Structure formats: C-alpha cells, structure tokens
C-alpha cells in the first residue's frame, strides 16, 4: 500500500472526500480554478507591489543615505568656512564628508563651448562613480566631466578642455545620475577644490552607510552648528524616501485587498459547488447516518472536501504566482531572482492560507446542513 493510500485509510474523511471530488471532475476542477485565480491574484499583486517598491528604490538609489548642509542665507551666512567643515567632520561619526565649492564658468573644447556649473571637491569618489575612466580618491589635478556636458562637448577621458581659461586633462566621465540627487553632476564639471574661485564652501554633502546613520548625523550637525544661531540648513532626503516607502506599503495593501475580492468570489463558487454536491448526495449521506456515522464525521468529511479543493487550488495558484513573479521581475527589473525574497514568500503563504481558509469557511454551511438533515427525510425516495 503506498503512503497516500495509507494516509487516506487512516483519515476516512479524506478518503471519502477525495472519492467524492473525483465524481464530478469538471465541477471540482472549476471550483479549484476559482481558488487558483484568487490565490494568484493576491500573491501576484503582492509581488507586483514588491517589484514596484524595488524599482523605486533603485531609482532613488542611496539618496536616503545622504544629507546636504548649506549656509543659511536668511541669517546672512554666505558660505561655509573651514571651521564649519571641521565641526561637521566631528559631528559625523560614520560616513564621508564632501565639502563643495561651486561656480558657473565657461567650458570649452576646441571650438565648442558652453557655460556650466563647476564643483570644487577634494574627494568626489565618495559620492560619484565613473562611467569611463577613473575617479581618484583625492582630486589634485585634472577634471571630471558630467555625462551631459561630456555628450554636449563630445568629451572622452584623455581629452583636454579649457575651464575659465585654464586647461585640464579629463580623467573621467561620470556615470549618469538617475533620479533625485543632492549634487547632480550630469551637466557639470568637477575640479580640484583650489581651482575654484573663493575661500568658503557652498555646500557640504555627507554620505553615510545607511539612512539611519544619515539621520543621526543630521541631528548632531544641527546640534553642533546651530547651537547659538541658525548657521546652516540641513537637508535630508530620508524623510522623503521613508514617505515613499510608506506609500508603497499602502499601495501593496490596497492591491492585496483587490486580490482578496476575487478570492471571496472563489469562496462563493466553492459554497455553491459544495451545496450542490451535498444536495445531490442527500440519500448517500442519509445512508451514512443510518449505518452509524456521526454528525461530526459528516461535517469533517465535507470540510475535508472543501479543504482539498482549497489546498489543490492554493498549491497550483502559488506555483503560477511564482511563475508570474519571475516573468514580471525579469521584464521590469531585469532580475528574475528578485522574486525569491522573503516578503514575496510571505505574500504567497498569505495567499495560500487565505485560499484554504476561504474554502473551508465556504464548506461550513453545506457541511452543517448535510449533517443536520434527518436521515429519515434524506432516505425517503
């Protein structure tokens, strides 16, 4: 005897349930299909939400990890001084501090020219990456060109450009920054700090390891620099990113709510199927009662049928949903493996649980009705 037969013999309710379901395969199949669709809807909408959130996170990048400190112009502070930068360095426990001096000048290569922003930075490597060439840890000579400017003036690493009358060798073209950025380099040129006119700094960017570290840095910078007067304004993107995260959480709940409606419809169809099949089997159930099968056993038998429908639909629905997730993620994120993350398994388990739960709930009334029919009535021809 194989293990399945063994199990069915041990749990007679399951044996009877399975046989009963095989009696009308099309009807059982359609009931299962309803559950499959419901489970698929919940699980795949949940995963769809995850994909949206992942995509948005990719767009935002590490923006939540960065904060920007600028002079408070309203209080008459024109620029940040070396002392300010030192104080910022002391306040930031974990992360790199990038002071920036900026200006607007004429940049030319050959006979092409344009007016762009130039940034003076000592350590641009802390916030930028190159798409071509190399970004040095300390920028002492040469220029880094933003992707937009590079395209406009047709610049490649190794070219020579003139900035405000002085010539520079281009060491790298910076990777295009997508989405939001505190200091957008796309249409700028980055030079060594001392090559930009001025003594102070227009902005200081702090790049921390995490959003939380960024937030802590922002708090201590405010405490240190704004103790006596509001010298600086501190701009954090973390509040925006967490707001966006929250929004996606709500969106996900909403999507799953829509999915649940289809599961409720599936539940009604199971209720209908079970009700019809118990009415058809009225006499049989009467016979079972007559030969000594207790009411409770009848209830268990019919609930087992509903449970089997739900389990079959849930398992198939989960597999189809994972398949749909893989397809969606490889299409949207170019990363099919993004499907297999814990939150998605949570959605799948939730959907299957809902599917089985809905089925059993839908079986309750037919089971109760069948068990409480008097055998005398049921057996009357």
């Amino acid at each position, binding site marked *: 005897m194989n293990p399945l037969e063994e199990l069915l013999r041990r749990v*007679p309710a399951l*044996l009877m349930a399975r046989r009963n379901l*095989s009696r009308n395969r099309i009807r059982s199949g359609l009931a299962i299909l309803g559950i499959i669709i419901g489970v698929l809807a919940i699980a795949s909408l949940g995963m769809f939400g995850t994909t949206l959130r992942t995509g948005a996170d990719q767009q935002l990048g590490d923006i939540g990890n960065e904060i920007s400190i600028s002079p408070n112009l309203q209080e008459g502070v024109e620029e940040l001084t070396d002392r300010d930068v030192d104080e910022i360095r002391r306040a930031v426990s974990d992360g790199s501090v990038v002071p920036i001096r900026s200006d607007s000048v004429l940049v030319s290569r050959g006979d092409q020219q344009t007016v762009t922003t130039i940034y003076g930075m000592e350590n641009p490597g802390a916030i930028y990456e190159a798409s071509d060439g190399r970004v040095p840890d300390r920028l002492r000579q040469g220029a880094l060109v933003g992707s937009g400017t590079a395209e406009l003036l047709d610049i490649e690493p190794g070219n020579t450009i003139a900035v405000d009358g002085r010539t520079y060798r281009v060491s790298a073209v910076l990777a295009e920054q997508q989405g939001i950025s505190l200091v957008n380099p796309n249409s700028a040129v980055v030079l060594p700090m001392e090559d930009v006119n001025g003594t102070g700094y227009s902005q200081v960017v702090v790049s921390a390891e995490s959003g939380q570290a960024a937030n802590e840095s922002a708090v201590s910078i405010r405490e240190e620099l704004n103790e006596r007067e509001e010298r600086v304004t501190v701009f954090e993107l973390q509040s925006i990113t967490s707001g966006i995260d929250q929004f996606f959480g709500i969106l996900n709940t909403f999507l799953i709510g829509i999915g649940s409606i289809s599961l409720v419809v599936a539940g009604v169809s199971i209720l209908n199927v079970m009700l019809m099949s118990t009415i058809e089997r009225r*006499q*049989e159930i*009467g016979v079972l009662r*007559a*030969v000594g*099968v207790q009411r409770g056993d009848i209830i268990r038998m019919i609930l087992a049928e509903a449970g089997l429908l739900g389990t079959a639909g849930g398992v198939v629905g989960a597999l189809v949903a994972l398949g749909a997730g893989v397809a969606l993620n490889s299409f949207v994120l170019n990363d099919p493996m993004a499907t297999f993350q814990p939150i998605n398994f949570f959605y799948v388990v939730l959907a299957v649980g809902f599917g089985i739960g809905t089925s059993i709930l839908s079986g309750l009334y037919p089971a109760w009705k069948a068990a409480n029919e008097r055998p005398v009535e049921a*057996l009357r021809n």
Partner: protein
Amino acid sequence: MSHIIELQNVWKRYETGGEVVEALKDVDFHTDPGEFVSVMGPSGSGKSTMLNVLGLLDTPTEGTVLLDDRDVTDLSDREMTARRKEFIGFIFQSFHLIPTLSALENVEVPTLFGDDPAARERATTLLERVGLGDRLDHRPDQLSGGQKQRVAIARALINEPRILLADEPTGNLDQETGRSVLDLFDEIRREDDVAIVAVTHDPQLSDYTDRTVELVDGRIQ
C-alpha cells in the same frame, strides 16, 4: 425477556399542511433473535414509519422503544447513532451503495469512521459469504441488481448487528434473484441468530418468515 426490540403503545403523528396525520396508532410489536418477521400492508399504512422507529431513525410521538431491554426512546442523536451502529443493519430497496467506492469499501463504510483494524478482513469474509468473493474491487455500476443487494447485505452485517431491517429488499429484483436474497436472509438468521424485520409487498416472503404482521392505517391487525 428475550425480545431484542420492542415497541410499546407507539404513536406517530405528523403535521402536514395544518393537518395531523397519524402514521402509527398504538402499535405494539416485538421480535426475538433469530426470528424473521415481515410487515405487510398497503402503501401509506405506516410500514416505513414503523421501520424507521424500529431502526432508531425516527422517534415516536408517544410510547416506548426498547432495544435489548433498554429504553432508547429519548436518546440524543449521538447515542442513537451509536446504537444503530452497534445493533442494527439496514437494507434498502434501492440498495443505496456509494457509487465512488468499491464493493469492499462499501461494506466497510459503517466501520470507516472509527478505529477498527479488523474491518477489512471481516468485509472480505462477508463478501465471500454472499458469493461476491471475486467482485471485491468492482464499483456498484459494474454489479447487477442482485449483486448490489448482496453487497448491501454484507454492509448491513459488518458490525455484527442483532437486528436486520429491510425495506422492500426484493422490490427491485426479479423473482429468482429475490429468492436467492431471501435464502441468504434465512441463512443469516439461522447462523447468526439475527432478528430480521422486512417491510414488503412481496408475497413470496411469507414462504420464509416465521410470522407476518399486517399493518392497515397505522394499526396492527
């Protein structure tokens, strides 16, 4: 007292459409182990109601039902079900086998919901005894009417009951097949000391029964 089941002053009244129908009127009836009794009467005379009361499927409006000398009139549904399982085997005119189960499984049905590891062996023996040893795995739709009724008889005997209640057991069978089923009844009541009560129209039953009870308008004549 040796009566296995007894009805004392049993009345059964139904209310249908504001009208009270008296299906059983002051019925006294008893049967003893090994006795074969037929209940005859025109349709609507209360035969089926009487069989249902005897089989603990229905409760009388008035009167007492004694099963093995114990009053079972007012038992709960749960206890009645347990008594049915222990004492009573049912045989129906239209057999009422479960179409999705094999002959062997159909015989086992009364034992399914309970711990009874020897049931399969008993079921096999019973089917061999009723001459269906080679039909164990057949589904009801693969069996003839007589064979189905034999499966039903084997099912009725699986829990070694003290009483067999049969509702028109030959009603759906031709005369010859009916006779072989009645031969089987005769064997069972002799060998197993089982009381058999059969409700019937079939006059050939009287060749087999110890006595016949005539029911007219809910009264025993």
